[in-house]
Structure formats: C-alpha cells, structure tokens
C-alpha cells in the first residue's frame, strides 16, 4: 500500500493576530477618551514667598462676586471685555501680575471661567490668594 504524502504548508497563521491587536487598540482608545487628565495649570506661591511680592497697584485685581459678576480694578466689567482691558497692559508689561479674588459663595465654575479667559488673553502670572493669605496681609474683607 502506498501512503499519500500530503504537504503541510509552512505558514504561521497571522490573521487572528490582527484581530487581537485591533481589539486592544479599541480598548486603549476608549480608555484614553474617558480618562480626565487635562485642565488648567497654575502654581501656588512658594512657602517662603509672599503672595504679594508686587505692589498691589502694579497688579490687576479681579474680584469675582457670588453672582459670578466681575469687578476689575474697582470697575464692573463683563467677562468678554476682560481680554480687551488686559491687552494694552500686557503689551506694556507681558509679565503683568493678575490677582484673582473669588467670593466664597461664588460657584467654582465662575473662578475657572475667569481663569480660562485670563489664559486665553495671554496672562501667565495669575495669583490666586486664599482667604487665609488675604487675611494675613489685611486684604480679607469684601470677598464674602
């Protein structure tokens, strides 16, 4: 009896590897989409450094009221008008410090809206003093 010699192809099946790989891609895509790791960055003043190393009159003071309205250097101003107000000041001094004082009863989003607008206007030197710091320098009133 003659035995048949069936040839076995010398191939590694790679079709399923691509399936597995694409499954993993989809997993990482979805995982990266849902992770919240982006936002606005700022620096708190160093421990040994005063929050107000600049003269208050040299800085722009923005006060955010509980109803989210703004007072900039003592004058009421709309959020949209803020870049226009700051632009000439930044042109003269690109490192112009801006002090932001938010009322304790204001929503957090009111503070982030102003902060975002400042960043959009190109302000890099934003100081966000806490109530304890303001009280330390005798500037605590009026932010309730």
């Amino acid at each position, binding site marked *: 009896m003659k035995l048949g010699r069936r040839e076995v192809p010398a191939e590694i099946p*790679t*079709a399923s*590897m*691509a399936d597995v*790989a*694409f499954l*993993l*891609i989809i997993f*990482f*895509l979805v*995982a*990266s989409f*849902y*992770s*919240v*790791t*982006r*936002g*606005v*960055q*700022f*620096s*708190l*003043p*160093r*421990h040994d450094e005063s929050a107000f190393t600049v003269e208050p009159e040299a800085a722009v003071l923005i006060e*955010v009221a509980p109803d989210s309205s703004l007072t900039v250097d003592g004058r009421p101003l709309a959020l949209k008008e803020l870049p226009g107000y700051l632009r000439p000041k930044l042109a003269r001094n690109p490192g112009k410090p801006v002090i932001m004082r*938010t*009322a*304790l*009863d*204001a*929503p*957090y*989003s*009111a*503070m*982030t*809206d102003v*902060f*975002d607008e400042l*960043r*959009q206007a190109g302000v890099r030197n934003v100081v*966000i003093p*806490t*109530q*304890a*710091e303001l009280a330390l320098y005798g500037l605590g009133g009026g932010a309730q």
Partner: protein
Amino acid sequence: MRIRPNRRTLTAAIPTATMADIAFLLIIFFMVTTAYSLDRTALELPQTREQEQSPKGAALIVVAADDTFRFSAGETDAEPVTGLEGLAAGIRGVTAANRLHPFSIKADRNVKYRTIDAVLEQLRQAGAERITLLSRGEDTR
C-alpha cells in the same frame, strides 16, 4: 512558432502580516499615552478652552457636589477621606516625601468656592506648588 500561453496561477491571498505590525505600533502608542483615571466619580467638571495635560503620577483631590472629598496619592484609586482634616493628612503625606509632587483637583463646577479655597489653603500650607484644575474641553460634550 507556437506561443504557449503563460499559465502562472495567481494566488488570491491578501497579505495580512504587516497589518499586525501597524496594529501593534498603534497599541504601543496608546499604551504610552493613556493615563488611567484614578477616580470614576461622575462629576460635572467646569469647561475651559485652555487645556494642558496634568503631569503623570499627580496626586488627585476629588471634590464632589455634596462637598465630600476623595484622595489619591497618584498610584492607587482615589479613596474617600473624612472631611478637610483627612484630606490635609493625605496632602501632607505626599508633600513630606516630595514637596514638588504635582496635584490635580477634580471638582464639581457647582461646588462653592469656599470649599476650593479651603483645599488650596491646605495645599499651600503643605508646601505644594504645581496644581492642575481638571476641566472639560469646550469641544467635548
């Protein structure tokens, strides 16, 4: 002269070996760039146009709409902490090891600024410097 027709048979196969190469390249890219969320609390984050990637391994402070806190030193999932004192202890634990350790604040947009101010004060007292306020981009809804 008789021309013999060329009868080379063409195999009907699609070469798929390179597809896996491309796929694995993409996998490595996503593995490197994906930063996993340390917290899955559903919050309504504030919306900002400016967005920067928070540093990898940043400690996470979660402030929910009901003023409850969760904290993670940056390696494990965020755990609930009892009030501002519990949060302050967590923050001090991180800054004691490395004062320059970055922090991220994930807070609900409707939280009163009073709570955020208290958190910032704890961070300032602990000597923390690099802070990221996590937000939602304006284009993602």
